[in-house]
């Protein structure tokens, strides 16, 4: 979808880490590409104008990890609703995980999603294929066919590739394609039956916990296999301080490891399961709001110590990118007991506000955060050279314009995502998207 008319984004603070740019200026998009970026232009071209005064203009966000649920779970989300939600959240590229029904383990399903996204998608959809057939962890999927069909990575996300020998094979097999194997790091024996972080809160609630070691075991294994094979492992949704430390050490040794972290793991603790949105002490009386199933996510919300390590890792670049793990669910999946509830948070529309809370708290600077959501994932995708995640002249015309200060109250009922499963209901976030531009055309504009 190439804009018919040039788009002139005027007077915003342009933050583009791909070229170290942070200035108040203008941005002109023509034929779906960046035609001009820099100091304010003297004469306004004949173009549709978006006044970005007081707002931040950056490359559109790239989400390397989300769930669009189609095919198979259209009651939770579709490619149409999921990409609309992405646009509202400021994302112009989303990579969808293969835990669909059927799983994305063949070129046919990849093709279905690509066609559907071209017809109904509001932003760019890139496809992640399954590592194993049916995501069953038994035998490799036809990885070459998937790579040729255009997947940007393979993953059995939702489950780990528990069989180490199979993981080793997948890493070796994917090497010639230059694509990563994304692993959901969880030792399924250690985590069996667990529904939240193992700790004081799980014990208090009488819920079965997933220890940090369940993730760290698998992170350690994957680092060993990356060393053994030279294959690229991308570690999905890190949640523990121990994982960050291991990735830090692995990177220092130059191993082919990359990693991501999600907004909820950077901002929420397991205490949110107590039903008081993180307030109060673990021993305060539990009320009807306790066992808030919107806080149930895999990997689980951890401790403030883990948050500190994750924020530090993101700041240092040990963790390469922020992704969302947007996991929309229907009400019936969540309006049940905590044990029965589905794992996942619908967060693509709240991600920016959540992440900006780290900026407002002085824990990470804006340029770094934007880099982790734009240039860094574009590099991982191998598409930085094709102009993704950048506002350099000639780059793809994907832009987000956001107000970093505007407060707004989260109302999941107002989400365009079908998944209303957000623990942030009623929370005031500071920072929201004013407009999202995809390929040079406005895909979403506040109030429009």
């Amino acid at each position, binding site marked *: 979808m190439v804009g018919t008319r040039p788009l002139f984004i005027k007077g915003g603070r342009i933050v583009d880490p791909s070229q170290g740019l942070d200035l108040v200026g203008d941005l002109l998009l023509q034929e779906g590409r960046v035609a001009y970026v820099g100091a304010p232009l003297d004469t306004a071209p004949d173009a549709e104008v978006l006044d970005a005064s007081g707002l931040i203009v950056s490359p559109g966000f790239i989400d390397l990890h989300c769930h669009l649920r189609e095919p198979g779970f259209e009651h939770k989300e579709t490619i149409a609703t999921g990409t609309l939600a992405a646009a509202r959240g400021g994302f112009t590229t989303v990579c969808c995980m293969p835990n669909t029904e059927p799983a994305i383990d063949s070129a046919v399903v990849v093709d279905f999603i690509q066609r559907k996204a071209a017809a109904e998608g509001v932003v760019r959809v890139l496809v992640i294929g399954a590592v194993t057939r049916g995501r069953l962890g038994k035998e490799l999927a036809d990885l070459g066919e998937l790579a040729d069909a255009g997947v940007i990575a393979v993953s059995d996300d939702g489950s780990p590739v528990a069989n180490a020998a199979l993981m080793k094979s997948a890493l070796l097999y994917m090497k010639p394609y230059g694509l990563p194997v994304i692993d959901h790091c969880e030792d399924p024996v250690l985590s069996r039956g667990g529904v939240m972080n*193992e*700790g*004081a*809160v*799980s*014990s*208090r*609630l*009488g*819920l079965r916990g997933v220890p940090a070691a369940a993730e760290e075991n698998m992170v350690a294994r994957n680092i060993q296999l990356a060393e053994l094979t030279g294959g690229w492992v991308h570690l999905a949704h890190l949640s523990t301080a121990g994982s960050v430390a291991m990735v830090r050490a692995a990177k220092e040794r130059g191993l082919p490891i990359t990693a991501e972290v999600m907004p909820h793991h950077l901002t929420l603790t397991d205490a949110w399961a107590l*039903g008081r949105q993180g307030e109060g*002490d*673990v*021993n*305060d*009386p*539990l*009320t*009807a*709001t*306790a*066992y808030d199933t919107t806080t149930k996510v895999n990997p689980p919300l951890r401790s403030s110590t883990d948050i500190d390590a994750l924020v530090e890792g993101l700041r240092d670049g040990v963790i390469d990118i922020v992704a969302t793990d947007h996991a929309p669910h229907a009400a*019936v999946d969540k*309006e*049940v*007991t*905590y*044990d*029965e509830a589905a794992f996942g948070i619908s967060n693509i529309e709240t991600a920016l506000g959540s992440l900006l809370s780290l900026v407002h708290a002085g824990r990470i600077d804006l340029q770094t955060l934007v880099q982790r959501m734009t240039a860094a994932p574009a590099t991982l995708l191998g598409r930085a050279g094709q102009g993704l995640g950048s506002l350099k002249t000639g780059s793809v015309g994907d832009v987000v314009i956001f107000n970093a200060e505007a407060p707004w109250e989260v109302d999941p009922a107002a989400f365009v995502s079908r998944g209303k499963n957000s623990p942030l209901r009623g929370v005031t976030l500071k920072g929201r998207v004013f407009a999202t531009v995809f390929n040079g055309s406005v895909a979403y504009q506040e109030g429009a």
Partner: protein
Amino acid sequence: MTTRSDVRPASATEVLPSSLPPRRHVLDLDDYSIEEIELVMQTTDAMGEVLRRSIRKVPTLQGKTVVTLFYEPSTRTRVSFEQAGKVLSADVINLSIASSSVEKGESLLNTARTLEATQADVIIIRHGASGAPNFLARCIEGSVINAGDGAHAHPTQALLDLYTLRQRLGSIEGAKVAIVGDVLHSRVARSNLWGLAAAGAQVVLCGPPTLLPMDWLRDQHLQGRLASISVTTSINDALDGADAVMTLRLQKERQQDGLIPSLREYARSYQINADRLKLAKTGAPVMHPGPMNEGVEISSEVAHGAASVIEAQVANGVAVRMAVLYLLATGRGEE
């Protein structure tokens, strides 16, 4: 036929401080003050008096509907709630899961909505999932009583334990109460923690390290209301000079998790038997919430011996649940 409709003892009014907030649900004892526990105890005294009459029926809850909704098998809890409701003249509906829509896959939410439509005043729920009563409480307008949920809470069991202890010890304040066994999976232990701590007992939790929730029960959390709680893996330390011993059921169905080597090893290390009981104070009552694994967590000799108050616990169950129902359905003693 009795003409007395007011079963409230005079003393219950006296101990009722005006500051007690109205109660809508009984989810656990973590929100009970010592004053409110005392009110339940005194109301239980009055209910016990009703149960000793030749005609055990008072019209207090006439016109109120009480539903028991049990997703897990239960004998004593369910029967005692049913009897409690009937003695108080409530209409008691027992929703048996085997003959209900739940067997057809109906969710707890829809079952709750159905019960709501029948204008149930109180729903008494037993469920295998921790937090199911909290979930129910946020779905419905009426009152919820937790009759045991997962590993979370079993408040009426803890209240009847408190009542039984009070009968035997006089005062609970300052008493050393040893709770021995599978604390990790025990809703009874969790609720007793709150109740006993509020009542001023010195509680010692004891079990093998794999069956103690050590991440919670450590110094940083054993403050404030839980300051009188301590934890040990030493059965001798736990029983030494104890005023009362509470034995927990070893949840055999969790054996597959490999948390203990064997039942034999568990019994060798933690069974409450006559020899070990000598460490406790002479005549210290021994409790068990039932159902017992005799020969595992408790020896038959102790279970049926002089120190055992297990039958008294069962007997007190009805009066305690009458008190809880009464206080909930009548707005805490006001009429």
